[in-house]
């Protein structure tokens, strides 16, 4: 039972995006539609699980001085392979994801889990940890993509849900939702919601802001 904690822990309690604020870049870029978000989530989860497994397997033989390079090499190779597979089997989606699959390499989430967990734990728990973090990331990405696609384009998975005025319906799409800043807004609201429900996640302020003694008037 204890090892299963690695799986469900990161989904809400220790979510990589809402608690650790990792992997934000891709969360902004690919969440304009549910389809791209879903493929991105599957690609990231796949890379995370495989990278955790490989790195955990050879963890006892990775020299400390070059461990980050070794981890990045393994992650980058897995990402390229996944990218090639997507280009071969899901060509439409690969065109819409463009460079973001390649950018999984630079996703701090993958390197973060490799360095923090897979380097020190056996293969089984490492893979569960990778899967759990991948699912936690996916959950947030899909929620953000749901909000952005629904309000930004009136569709879900490309299917019309709110008929837009372009198609003769009544809904005026909120173009802001299709721009990157809206992902920040949705993410911020999510972080707020999660931390209101679980106050334990609220971080201590580094220091209190003093009242300004010089300040005059009300």
């Amino acid at each position, binding site marked *: 039972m204890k090892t299963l904690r690695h799986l469900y822990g990161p989904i809400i309690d220790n979510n990589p995006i809402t608690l650790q604020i990792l992997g934000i870049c891709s969360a902004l870029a690919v969440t*304009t539609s549910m389809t791209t978000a879903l493929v991105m989530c599957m690609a990231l989860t796949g890379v995370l699980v495989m990278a955790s497994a490989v790195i955990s397997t050879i963890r006892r033989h990775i*020299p400390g001085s070059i461990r980050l390079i070794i981890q990045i090499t393994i992650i980058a190779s897995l990402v390229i392979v996944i990218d090639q597979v997507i280009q071969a089997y899901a060509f439409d989606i690969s065109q819409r994801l463009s460079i973001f699959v390649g950018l999984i390499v630079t996703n701090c989430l993958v390197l973060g889990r490799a360095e923090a967990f897979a380097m020190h734990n056996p293969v089984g728990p490492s893979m569960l940890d990778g899967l759990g973090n991948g699912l936690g990331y996916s959950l947030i990405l899909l929620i953000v993509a749901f909000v952005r696609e629904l309000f930004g384009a009136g569709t879900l998975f490309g299917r019309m849900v709110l008929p837009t005025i372009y198609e003769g319906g009544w809904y005026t799409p909120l173009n802001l939702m299709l721009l990157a800043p809206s992902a920040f807004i949705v993410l911020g609201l999510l972080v707020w919601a999660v931390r209101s429900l679980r106050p334990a996640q609220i971080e201590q302020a580094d220091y209190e802001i003093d009242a300004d003694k010089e300040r005059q008037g009300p």
Partner: protein
Amino acid sequence: MVDLNPFSLWRRLLALPNESQTKTIAVAFIVATVCSVLVSSAAVLLAPMQEANRAAERQARLDAMIASMPAMAEILEASGVDTLETVVVDLRSGEVTDIDPGTFDARAAATDPAMSSEIPRELDVAGLGRRADFAPINILREGDVVRLVILPISASGYQSTIYANIALEDDFNTVAALSIVEQGETPGLGSRIEEPAWQALWPGKQIADESGSIRLSVVRGRASNAFEVDGITGATRTGSAVSAAVHFWLGEYGFGPVLARLREGTFAP
């Protein structure tokens, strides 16, 4: 006597302390080799499928473009051919070359110094840098008369290179259709140039005025004459890029010589 048994060598390597130089170099080398084999085999094994996907995509877009021009479908049927003729033209002279269009790769040619030229800075409105000296074009003939020509155009857009096909009617000045082949513009804004509703604005537009200068442009807001196409709100730079593609590729450094020959009737395959 040196022990050359690979198994015991391997065991000795693993037994070395992690911080030793030999092991550091050996681990780096092994990881790099295994990873490179993995990556190259994935690339080689999957390349045929990816190429087939790309070719299918290009063909599908060309077919969709022809299907969107009802008159052309009729001419095709009447002339008894089910597809267009593809020829490779020399952009410098406007002549048809004998390069086999089946093996000609326009994208590769654009970066090959032997087959491309640098675009003079003042003419490079489309921000391309170089262009291939040869380009594959599709033509549709009825008897000996060229009825339709489809030209590939491109320009550097807001965050991607936009590739499109533009079809011209037999006066070589009226747009028959425009179809975006490839783009990676902002989803929901610039990428709306892919929408059929926007591409449907193009047929009937005029490229150049009587003096011969190219005027067709994507404007902000609503079009007011035959040289203007409605812009997309929030996609001004993508729209300008499509305009630039038209201006560059139909101009002197693009298909200008080819179009001149087509108009004169001296374009022979």
